[in-house]
């Protein structure tokens, strides 16, 4: 679109039209000095419709007209600012923008150059992967009732605080729902057991006990046993068996049940 009059400032920004993402240039009063073709297309306006208008009257993001405005911060702190926000006006769009102070020939800051990048799709993918990770966590800790009042929980993989929290909540809920008296936590499949993991495991068994159930840990490896001892954990209350089947037999004993041969 041809400018109506030859303006020295406008010529100064022509190169920005070559950059493949929306760019907005504003002065210290946040009035638009220039917008490149991509920014104009975003608004569906012509250049003479936007020059001189306040930027927040044209765009509507969560940062607009607030202290969080990257351009205002860039001008104040005399440095480039990178920020992320959501746009309400142009349909729901997640935006990442770079705000750089605009200087004149004397080095005085006269405005700000704002480069916008649409990160909506990236954010969607990020949210999806978080959801998938959560699902994997849920799927990998099934709580199985092997007998009336006996729950087993085979733990596979690593045990971090977030996962332990999730497992504990699900386990305690299951104890209440099934009125379980014994919980067998099998850790054969736990690959990495650091000090913190052991602490989480102890916490889980303590919580089980507070609900009046007995916790039995099976599948204990020598390394984990060493970690627990080094932690100085009170192992007197902790019931452990090396194999899951031994844990189940102990559970039967606690429930005063016996396995007999049928002739």
């Amino acid at each position, binding site marked *: 679109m041809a400018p109506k009059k030859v303006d020295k400032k406008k010529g100064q920004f022509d190169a920005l039209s070559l950059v493949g993402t929306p760019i907005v240039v504003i002065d210290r009063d946040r009035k638009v000095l220039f917008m490149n073709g991509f920014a104009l297309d975003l608004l569906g306006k012509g250049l003479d419709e936007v020059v001189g208008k306040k930027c927040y009257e044209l765009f509507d993001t969560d940062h607009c007209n607030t202290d969080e405005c990257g351009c205002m911060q860039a001008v104040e702190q005399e440095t480039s600012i990178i920020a992320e926000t959501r746009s309400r006006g142009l349909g729901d769009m997640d935006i990442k923008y770079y705000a750089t102070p605009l200087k004149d020939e004397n080095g005085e800051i006269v405005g700000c150059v704002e480069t916008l990048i649409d990160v909506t799709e990236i954010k969607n993918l990020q949210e999806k992967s978080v959801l998938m990770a959560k699902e994997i966590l849920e799927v990998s800790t099934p709580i199985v009732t092997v007998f009336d009042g006996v729950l087993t929980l085979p733990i596979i993989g690593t045990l971090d605080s977030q996962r332990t929290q999730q497992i504990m909540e699900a386990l305690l809920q299951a104890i209440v729902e099934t*009125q379980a008296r014994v919980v067998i936590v099998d850790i054969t499949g736990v690959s990495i057991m650091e000090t913190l993991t052991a602490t989480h495991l102890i*916490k*889980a068994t303590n*919580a089980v006990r*507070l609900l009046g159930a007995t916790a039995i840990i099976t599948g204990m490896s020598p390394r984990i046993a060493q970690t627990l001892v080094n932690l100085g954990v009170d192992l007197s209350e902790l019931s452990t068996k090396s194999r899951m089947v031994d844990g189940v037999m102990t559970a039967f004993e606690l429930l005063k049940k016996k396995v007999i041969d049928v002739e």
Partner: protein
Amino acid sequence: MAIKGKIPVLKVGDNLLVSIQVDMTDEMAVHLQEDILNQLIATDVRGVLIDISTLDMIDSFLARSFSETAQMAATMDTAVVIVGMQPAVALTLVELGLELAKVHTALNVDRGMELLENLKLGSREA
């Protein structure tokens, strides 16, 4: 004059039954502890059952109060069983590392009564 928000302590057979139905303040916890101990001395009960199924929060003061009650009761050869702890409360207690020393726990009142009888039998044999 009745103390506002006093938690009733009921004698049932040779057990004391306490059902906490309201949020406990520190003051209430202190009164409850006193009431339980007074009843233990005045009667020949050998077990105390405290139902906390409606409590969705237990702070360190209350946890310590329960422990103290249990320890004092133990000196009088009396068992204390707490029943109905909500999962969220259990999680908080273990997170804070609050130990309920000498306190036995059960899922509900029925199991709690069963446990009390077993404990009494056990201590009689000892």
